[in-house]
């Protein structure tokens, strides 16, 4: 029986091409995700191994670790620099250095900031004896006007040793000379790394005299654990000592967790692609089984058991799955190699280790095969139970089971899903409203797929009405062909429905976010101009002073910000702490809601906290919170509550209080608002502002429109990534349409012959098949978009507090999706239509 299964694959290879392709694409996505994860993980492990080389670390018990390469971290209290001497004097210590790191911007040879997308740009102190990096050329920096550059940084900056350029530290540009080149033993993934002398680093990034950690190297003969024991005696109170291995392991784990989120995110789309692929496989096997019903009946008649018939079909599914996943595994690695090459061209050097692992290959093969077999199981079962007597009959009729049960089940799912979404929308403050929304939406989408065989024909009848009326007989024939097999039509269109539902929801989410942002900016911020940097760059305080001196400027306010541990009622969380001039409230900044005398509270050194934070911690006006900064720890009384999406800080204090907690050098100020005096010449002011910020390289001048557009552009970038990821499932869905059409052309050979015999021309025939294809594609798209948009409409209600206040349905994008569906339908029809038109009329008529 196995042989019969294999023969069926080899003799009808063309029939399974699309199935193989679908499996291959889905598996390529899965394998690619795992391979990318491996590549990134080994890249970061190499970075950690190369940059955290010490044997022991003295650090604060909480916090993110000494080297801090991956996250900025909160600026809690640190390890005092004063303890460095005691550490150095400890027995068995070969050398000990303070770990200081801070964001800087290097100006390259072309006069613009050196930066590669998404990679950090920071400064480290130069220590002549530090084994972490090696000298390549030149010498180390000795004063504030000298820098040493990491090898890749030097390369991508276009600078050479001896060149003079600018370095922006804490928003301030200083002229520096490149005096040397250093090399880390690992590729730094595109990070821009500048080495400064220790005094400059301390002045800039450790103004409070504390650092995140001290790294300690042991003398030969001293084991890391001995070193840790001895250091514990001298370590300042409140600090802890860990071995280098422990720190590296912690960092590795933290990175692995981050990458886990990324790969989970990607896997969602990979699973989606596989799910859509399963539709194609199921359709292929259903049609193949239907055509071969007589063959199966014959096999049964000559003594094959149902299990053997079932097995012969499963063998085919295994072959399709294995071939598809093998191609997919190769494709996945190719994909990751391609991404690696692309990143290298963007100056992001990743680990050169090949991300090929046996487990990844195995996962790819297993996933592809299991999906294929699972999709073929139902049609195989149908073939297995065919009564042998069918072989004797002339016409083999496949009894279509009634759609009633399926209809009711789907309807129940849709109703339950929509009900959950409505409940979430009506009571957005209830616990887990977001989870309820998610589950409800998922149930509704699955429900729509389940009722597909009922919904799709109805929608197609409606969509086809113009074609039926105006394009006789093509419209009627096409409609009949789509509608005649509701299950097949539904699963073909359903593949597109899934992708389009997500596209619709993403589009609604994106435009609603943009509109909400505009709303927030327009209603909460009232400035004529905004000076803006990209985090973690900061607008230097002196810029604010210079702008204040401009004629025609009425008010200039920064929004300095730092993250710090905040304790409330016994729980400590890291919160954003913003320093707001009380004068801003009600003028430049009008938060959505304010409770209590917020401006007065700020003026009197009290704190104003975010409503959500207050609710989460059961805080009310009059309660106290404790903020720990590098400079001091302060207990503040809550003098008011506010809700502002524009500000987004958990705790607001006056700038003076913030300064006393966190040194100005460790605050980040990405936004400075400028209000012009009445009657001032705004055009001229823009020129003056631009002239002021020019020497700071990282600051740009915007009015509120441009500010909103900048935010909108970020949303569009994310949307573009989502579209690209969803694109794959749509490509697979298109393959599904091609597949269904091509197979139904084979199935309908006689009918096509008949039509041609009674005078249907080739163009008419091609037109019929194209119309079928377009109807299917548009139907899938319409159902998907309606589902997605309908469900996403609940988002602004549920996530109102997170700033999604406005619902906006992007009619333009949705229409272009419909246009895309028409194009997709036409493209998918080309091959099947050509095949059908080429069928010789006689073969078709006299086919037995």
């Amino acid at each position, binding site marked *: 029986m196995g042989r019969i299964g294999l023969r069926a694959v080899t003799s009808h290879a063309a029939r399974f091409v699309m199935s193989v392709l679908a499996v291959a694409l889905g598996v390529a996505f899965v394998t690619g995700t795992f391979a990318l994860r491996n590549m990134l993980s080994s890249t970061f492990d190499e970075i950690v191994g190369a940059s955290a080389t010490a044997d022991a670390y003295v650090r604060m018990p909480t916090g993110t670790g000494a080297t801090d390469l991956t996250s900025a971290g909160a600026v809690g209290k640190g390890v005092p620099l004063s303890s460095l001497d005691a550490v150095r004097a400890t027995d068995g210590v070969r050398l000990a250095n303070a770990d200081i790191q801070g964001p800087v911007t290097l100006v390259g040879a072309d006069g613009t900031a050196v930066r590669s997308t998404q990679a950090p740009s920071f400064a480290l102190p130069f220590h002549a004896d530090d084994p972490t990096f090696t000298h390549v050329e030149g010498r180390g920096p000795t004063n504030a006007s000298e820098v040493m550059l990491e090898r890749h940084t030097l390369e991508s900056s276009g600078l050479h040793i001896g060149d003079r350029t600018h370095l922006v530290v804490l928003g301030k540009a200083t002229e520096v000379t490149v005096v040397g080149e250093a090399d880390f033993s690992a590729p730094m993934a595109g990070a821009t790394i500048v080495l400064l002398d220790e005094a400059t680093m301390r002045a800039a990034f450790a103004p409070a005299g504390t650092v995140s950690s001290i790294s300690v190297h042991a003398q030969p003969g001293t084991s890391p654990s001995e070193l840790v024991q001895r250091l514990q005696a001298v370590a300042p109170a409140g600090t802890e000592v860990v071995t280098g291995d422990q720190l590296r392991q912690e960092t590795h784990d933290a990175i692995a967790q981050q990458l886990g989120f990324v790969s989970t995110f990607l896997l969602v789309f990979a699973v989606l692609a596989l799910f859509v692929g399963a539709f194609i496989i199921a359709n292929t096997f259903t049609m193949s089984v239907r055509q071969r019903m007589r063959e199966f009946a014959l096999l049964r008649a000559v003594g094959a058991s149902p299990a053997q018939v079932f097995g012969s079909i499963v063998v085919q599914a295994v072959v399709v799955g294995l071939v598809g996943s093998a191609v997919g595994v190769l494709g996945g690695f190719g994909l990751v190699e391609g991404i690696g090459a692309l990143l290298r061209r963007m100056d992001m050097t990743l680990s050169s280790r090949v991300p090929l692992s046996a487990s990844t290959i195995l996962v790819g093969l297993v996933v592809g095969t299991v999906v294929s077999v699972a999709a073929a199981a139902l049609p195989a079962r149908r073939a297995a139970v065919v009564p042998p007597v069918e072989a004797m009959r002339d016409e083999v009729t496949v009894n279509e089971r009634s759609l009633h049960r399926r209809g009711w089940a789907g309807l129940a799912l849709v109703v339950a899903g929509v009900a959950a979404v409505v409940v979430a929308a009506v009571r957005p403050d209830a616990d887990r409203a977001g989870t309820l929304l998610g589950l409800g939406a998922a149930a509704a989408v699955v429900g729509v797929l389940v009722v597909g065989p009922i919904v799709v024909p109805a929608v197609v009848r409606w969509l086809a009405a113009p074609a039926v009326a105006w394009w006789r007989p093509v419209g*009627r024939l096409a409609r009949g*062909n789509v509608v005649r097999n509701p299950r097949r039509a539904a699963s073909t269109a359903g593949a597109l429905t899934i992708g389009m539902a997500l596209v619709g929801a993403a589009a609604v989410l994106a435009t609603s976010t943009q509109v909400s942002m505009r709303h927030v900016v327009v209603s909460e911020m009232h400035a004529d101009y905004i000076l803006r940097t990209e985090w973690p760059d900061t607008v230097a305080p002196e810029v604010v002073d210079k702008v204040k001196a401009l004629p025609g400027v009425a008010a200039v306010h920064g929004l300095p910000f730092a993250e710090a541990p905040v304790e409330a009622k016994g729980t400590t969380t890291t919160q954003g702490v913003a320093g707001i001039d009380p004068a801003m409230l009600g003028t430049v900044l009008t938060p959505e809601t304010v409770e209590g005398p917020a401006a007065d509270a700020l003026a009197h050194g009290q704190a104003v906290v975010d409503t959500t934070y207050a609710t989460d911690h059961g805080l009310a006006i009059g309660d106290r919170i404790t903020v720990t900064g590098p400079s001091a720890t302060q207990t503040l009384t809550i003098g008011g509550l506010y809700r502002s999406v524009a500000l987004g800080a958990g705790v607001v204090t006056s700038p003076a209080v913030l300064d006393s907690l966190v040194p100005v050098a460790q605050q980040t100020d990405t936004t400075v608002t400028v209000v012009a005096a009445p009657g001032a010449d705004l055009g001229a002011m823009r020129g003056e502002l631009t002239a002021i910020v020019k020497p700071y390289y990282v600051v740009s001048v915007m009015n509120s429109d441009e500010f909103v557009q900048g935010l909108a552009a970020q949303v569009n970038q994310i949307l573009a990534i989502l579209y690209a990821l969803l694109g794959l499932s749509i490509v697979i869905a298109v393959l599904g349409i091609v597949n269904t059409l091509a197979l139904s052309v084979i199935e309908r050979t006689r*009918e096509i012959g*008949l*039509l*041609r*015999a*009674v*005078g249907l021309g080739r163009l008419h025939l091609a037109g019929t098949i194209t119309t079928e294809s377009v109807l299917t594609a548009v139907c899938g798209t319409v159902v998907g978009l309606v589902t997605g948009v309908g469900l996403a409409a609940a988002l602004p209600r549920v996530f109102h507090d997170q700033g999604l206040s406005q619902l906006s349905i992007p009619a333009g994008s949705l229409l272009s999706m419909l246009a895309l569906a028409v194009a997709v339908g036409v493209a998918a029809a080309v091959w099947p239509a050509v095949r059908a038109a080429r069928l010789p009329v006689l073969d078709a008529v*006299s086919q037995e």
Partner: protein
Amino acid sequence: MHHPVGPRHDGRVTTTAELDPARAADAHPYAIASARGLTKVYGSGEAQVHALRGIDVDLARGELTAIMGPSGSGKSTLMHCLAGLDRPSGGSVVVDGLEVSSLSERRLTKLRRTRIGFIFQAFNLVPTLTAAENITLPLDIARRPVDRGLFDEVVDAVGLRDRLNHKPAELSGGQQQRVACARALVARPSVIFADEPTGNLDSHASGEVLAFLRRSVDLLGQSVVMVTHDPRAASYAHRVLFLADGELVAELTSPTQSSVLATLAQLDGFPKEK
């Protein structure tokens, strides 16, 4: 040596001058379809099969002609070539004054659409269309208006008035063939080709279909060519042509079931030329 078999009405011997396509229509005022030296070869080399070995035939206008012969005699191939469904290997075919064998695919499609009606043995109807839609399908394809009077007349004649909105799957085999007959008639083709139209029917249903075809010839003046291996079906024809091994071997006019059977019995002893 081939013996041209002329139409019953004039009995003239065909001359080569009359094979000129331009004059074909003039040459045979009563012939709706003619073949001259028609050959059809399938395959090549060892596997070569001569389905037709030089057929000369004129089929009369306004008559029901039956083509009979044993399996493999080439009767279906002859019909397919006459109807423009298959291309001859040699010789010429003229249908309603048009030289079919040289027409392009596009012109052939147009010919089938406008001048030829088809009735097949099975799978005659488009399953997604209703009976009424199937009947008007050729007219819809040609974008010609439906002659309501003729439509009603035909529908009543085949007795399908109450079945018009049914899909083929909801009709019996006999009803399906009657729908196919109605479809062939409503488009007013020059000639209807029927390939074993009663092959799948019981005797009652086939009697209905055959009587209807004959009536359409007698009352409407329709020309019908029918391939069959059923002597009873052939007895409804005005003339029966007998094929064996790709050649015309006999003909009967005004056949009866018994005269057809007798001729077939006689042909069983017909000497093979191989």
